[in-house]
């Protein structure tokens, strides 16, 4: 080959000099650890300035009392008093609903499960993430197939994710608005959903009904998120593995169980992890459909107190919320660890 370019490669190598080349060489010479940290630097700087610094500031805000009059944003330094008040319920009066539930020893271990932000948030999270995952899975399985018109089906399935929350809220709000939407009727003239007992005739003022509808609305929109990610995971699987499995005698279900599923599990876990975090912070759809007063989520408390403006309380709620999410997420982390990510 290429006898004429005897020195071709050497030549081009020497041609590459100058600052760019030396930067490249410097980077290539770094150890794996150094290189890793170098590549992480941009992300860490961005996160540091835009996320860590504000969080630190907010945290310090959480150590001060609320101040409603005068030009100061915050009152006196109170240390951890805000945290103590919130956890003991002493601050519940300032919130749209109780923060933590009152625990009992009997199932379901709390009194009136809809009356506290934590329970409302957890219920929302469990059901929305569960159904989104299942439905997202189903949708991804369909999108993974080769059939005529699948590009349009794909767009159709993904498009709910593209709807702004305000509009998502409007769509469902109107659908369940007596005398406007047709999905809710009156006591005399109940609609199907009323008859089936899913919802009452004024669902958007009732915490349980609203929660149910908000979950439905969220599942509608966010399943696409799951579907997209899971689909991407499926698409990344080497198709020849299926050939092997087929010849080995695997049925479709077995192919799914033994190949597709384990191989997309990391992706699914990431998707579920972030969905869980997002669900734990649900706010927009609540605000636009039923209002924070009716369906008080943890983020609702943050935003309402923020707008009140009870900055100290708001910052404290935000940090406790993050802590609660952290606890929930650790369930995943344990799984992640076992998946070796």
């Amino acid at each position, binding site marked *: 080959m290429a006898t004429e370019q005897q020195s071709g490669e050497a030549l081009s190598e020497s041609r590459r000099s100058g600052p760019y080349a030396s930067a490249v060489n410097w*980077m290539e010479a770094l150890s794996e650890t150094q290189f890793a940290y170098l590549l992480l630097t941009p992300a860490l700087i961005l996160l540091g300035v835009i996320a860590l610094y504000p969080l630190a500031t907010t945290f310090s805000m959480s150590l001060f009392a609320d101040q409603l009059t005068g030009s100061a944003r915050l009152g006196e330094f109170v240390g951890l008093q805000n945290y103590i008040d919130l956890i003991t319920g002493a601050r519940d009066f300032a919130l749209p609903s109780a923060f933590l539930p009152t625990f009992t020893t009997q199932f379901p271990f709390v009194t009136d499960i809809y009356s506290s932000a934590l329970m409302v948030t957890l219920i929302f999270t469990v059901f929305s993430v569960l159904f989104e995952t299942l439905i997202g899975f189903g949708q991804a399985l369909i999108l993974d197939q080769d059939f005529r018109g699948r590009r349009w089906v*794909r767009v159709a399935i993904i498009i709910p994710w593209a709807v702004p929350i305000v509009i998502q809220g409007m769509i469902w709000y109107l659908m369940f608005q007596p005398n406007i939407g047709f999905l809710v009727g009156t006591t005399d003239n109940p609609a199907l959903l009323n008859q089936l007992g899913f919802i009452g005739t004024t669902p958007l003022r009732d915490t349980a009904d609203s929660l149910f509808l908000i979950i439905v609305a969220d599942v509608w929109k966010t399943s696409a998120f799951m579907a997209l990610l899971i689909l*991407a995971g499926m698409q990344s699987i080497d198709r020849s593995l299926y050939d092997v499995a087929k010849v080995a005698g695997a049925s479709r279900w077995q192919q799914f169980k033994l190949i597709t599923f384990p191989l997309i599990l990391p992706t699914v876990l990431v998707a579920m992890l972030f969905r869980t975090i997002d669900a734990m912070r649900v706010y927009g759809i609540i605000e636009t459909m039923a209002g924070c007063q009716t369906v008080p989520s943890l983020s609702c408390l943050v935003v309402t107190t923020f707008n009140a403006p009870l900055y100290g309380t708001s910052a404290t709620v935000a940090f406790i919320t993050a802590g609660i999410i952290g606890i929930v997420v650790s369930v995943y982390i344990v799984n992640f660890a076992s998946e070796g990510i």
Partner: protein
Amino acid sequence: MSNESSGIGLGSDDAEMKRGPLGRWVNKAIKNPDRAYRSMFYVATVFFLVTTLFPFYWLLVIALTPNRLISNMGLLPKGFNPEVFITMFERVPFHLYMFNSFVLGITTTVIVLLLASLAGYVFGRLRFPGKSFLMLGILAISYFPPAAFLIPLFELFTGNTAISIGFITVSSPDLFNTPAPMVFPFSALFLPLSIFILTTFYGQIPDGLEDAARVEGTTRLGALFRVIVPLSAPGVATAGVLTFIAVYNEFFFSFLMNNGEASSWAPIVAGILKYQGQFDTPYNLMAAASIVGVLPVAILVIIAQERIVSGLTAGALKE
């Protein structure tokens, strides 16, 4: 290998799909479970199509019904008012808001994909001390409700944060009404998700391919962008689409970082809310605006989907 039987499903007896009365069909279904599977597949497809598209249809119904008549709605629009799609532009320069959102979305997506690619490569393919700690730390940022960032970021971007270096005190620049106070927070807030997505995808690319690229003469970064990223196209495209859509529709931050005017880089949701009066809500205009607003995303998805759905690793390795 065997392109023909791609996917885990669907044999390839396309031609046989539409023939025969029910009885024959059932008979065949029993003999050929593929058939039963196929019909299940179609039922599921139709189900998902109906459930996802119905709310859109409802949106269209609302858009086409003159606002006055939006009451006691059925499944069909009351009245037919396609002019709403013109009115919506007359009332609010919606195209400008769309443009703003689009620019914000694209910029953020580019930043996020770039930074997340680097981080995803590091987390997915390198081993180094502190890795788990950093990953957990980055993840923890997304635990916080966005409101927790609002005040400090507002001050940072409106020139109210002073940084003292020795004797010199530098005040942060006033970036209110520019894209910056949106792009940076969005980038930071959506970064963790993309990092995690890309970490899993990059981690799955066989080492052999990176090796081949490096022997051919790429640097580690070169291998990342020439081989690993293209091969993770489904993951990258997905992360991109997710980020773009999230930014495109973001409102929580953006409404505080500008004064809501199209000329101040306010995004699409600000535009939609502009239709709203204090009490009166022109649902039809808002519906029309959201339909129009969703279109660019649909187009984007159509473009990106070729990447999202492209099993690329086939034929790469013998192992």
